């Protein structure tokens, strides 16, 4: 699915002294099959942007198009086409068992019996939960990290064409985080699922995103290839973001080696760089 935003503006608490312009003239197109990362400081409009893309937040001005069709008050969103993972998805759990919660959307799409069971098990696997151990548990007896994983499984379960995920890895332990990113990449590679992921961790975006949008004060400040932007520490710094670890390392190396060490994003490459400097002996 192609999602287009044309000159979107949206305010919260409009008409009050505390009115905040959440989005201010945003135009953006998400191409089918693309992996788009969205970064920016808190309050820059990232989450609002996802809500508008999904069609659940109606902008005060501008148009949202899904596959060229402008959304209107009358548009009914078909279940299963877009999966939206909210910032605190644990608040969206409501069923009695983990299985039923993850099965909710697939059921609405008509899945039942063994097919449904397999789909739920697959989705739980995607978020690193052992399906046999978790399926019959009560969501509210789980820890916040586990609840988040269940909620995320529920978003992934319908195998939507588009996944819009708001900080999907927050609260996840490092192993699960790496694993989830790998599975999202695989879904994108194998099924062509379009991915829009809001994140604060530039190391993760370096692994995940092909294109990066940086939001600032409700506007699209920067839009370009992720690998190029993520190597630009000064630019990231300007928008309150932290460069990936390998990029910070290259800056530290540059200043002590007394020469410009070109930034890298890959850990293997970073190790090669270090080895090269050690090989040359003191002074580089």
């Amino acid at each position, binding site marked *: 699915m192609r999602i287009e935003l044309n000159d979107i503006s949206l305010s*919260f*608490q409009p008409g009050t002294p*505390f009115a*905040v312009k959440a989005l201010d003239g945003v135009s953006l197109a998400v191409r089918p099959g693309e992996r788009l990362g969205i970064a*920016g*400081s*808190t*309050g820059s409009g990232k989450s609002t942007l996802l809500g508008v893309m999904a069609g659940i937040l109606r902008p005060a001005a501008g148009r949202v198009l899904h596959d060229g069709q402008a959304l209107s008050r009358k548009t009914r969103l078909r279940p299963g086409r877009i999966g939206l993972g909210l*910032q*605190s998805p644990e608040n969206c759990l409501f069923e009695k068992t983990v299985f039923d919660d993850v099965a909710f959307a697939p059921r609405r799409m008509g899945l039942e019996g063994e097919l449904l069971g397999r789909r739920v098990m697959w989705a739980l696997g995607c978020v690193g939960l052992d399906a046999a*151990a978790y399926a019959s*548990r*009560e969501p509210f*007896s*789980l*820890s*916040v*990290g*586990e609840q*988040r*994983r269940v909620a995320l499984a529920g978003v992934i379960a319908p195998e939507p064409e588009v996944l819009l995920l708001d*900080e999907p890895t*927050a*609260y*996840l*332990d*490092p*192993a*699960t*985080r*790496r694993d989830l990113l790998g599975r999202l990449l695989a879904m994108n590679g194998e099924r062509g699922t379009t991915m829009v992921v809001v994140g*604060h961790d*530039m190391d993760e975006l370096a692994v995940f995103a092909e294109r990066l949008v940086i939001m600032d004060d409700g506007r699209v400040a920067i839009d370009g290839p992720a690998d190029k932007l993520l190597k630009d520490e000064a630019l990231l710094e300007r928008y*309150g*973001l*932290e460069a990936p*670890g*390998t990029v*910070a*390392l290259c800056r*530290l*190396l540059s200043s*002590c*080696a007394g020469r410009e060490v070109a930034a890298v994003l890959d*850990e*293997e490459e*970073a*190790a090669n760089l*270090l*080895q090269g*400097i*050690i090989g040359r002996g*003191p002074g*580089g």
Partner: protein
Amino acid sequence: MEQPIISLKNVSYAYPHATGDHRAALSDITLDIQEGDFIGLVGANGSGKSTLARMLNALLVPVEGEIRVDGMLTSDKANHDRIRETAGMVFQNPDSQIVATSVEDDIAFGLENLGLPVEEIERRIADVARRFDVADLLEREPHWLSGGQKQRVVLAGVVAIKPRILILDEPTSMLDPRSRRQFHSLVKDLWRGGVTVIYITQLMDELALADRMLALDAGRVVFDGKPLDIFSNDELLERISLEAPLAVRLARTLARRGCKLRPVPLTLGQLVEEICG
């Protein structure tokens, strides 16, 4: 040795409605925490970190064993008010601990419960509002603040009580990098001022200050020691779903290729210093 500020003896806990294999949230935990420690508490999702945190300020009390906070037994209800003044807690999600309709009232809430005189309450609010950069927000409705602002409000409200122990349960998971750095430096100042810090996180870079790491796995303490020792233990890291910081990972890749760095660097700064001299 001085009396530990927190002491756990054979502590076990099970949530009342849990069933089957998942009954035990904590199993037989014995440990002491000294005043002024900075402790990193780590473990996979569901390993018992938040349960343990709630035990330390008597939101939960052990089913078996006992916990003392500054000598006070947590199982004795008569101690609860004083325990909660001693051990302040910042939860994962700031929304879950904001109670009032203005930032000022929210910070005042805990102070009013202490029964402090009005002038003292006002003095403390002014003090934390300045230190945590929320002075301009005092009139605002907390609900509409950004995540970073909310978390500063929460920390201000907890610190206003002047706790000697600060328990932080993944406090920065919802913050952007800038707010996260701000939050770290606030915590660092408090710790330097003598506050005991127990910091729960999934982000290993946040634990640069920790002098001791505790790791939980399925409700049991599986590691209690120096940060470097846990990060050098591959088998354990994998078992508890942790990842060593980038500097440690790079040093180990180099070691595999035949260049060993001594000592093993924990931060990128240390790594570069060892390499460039």
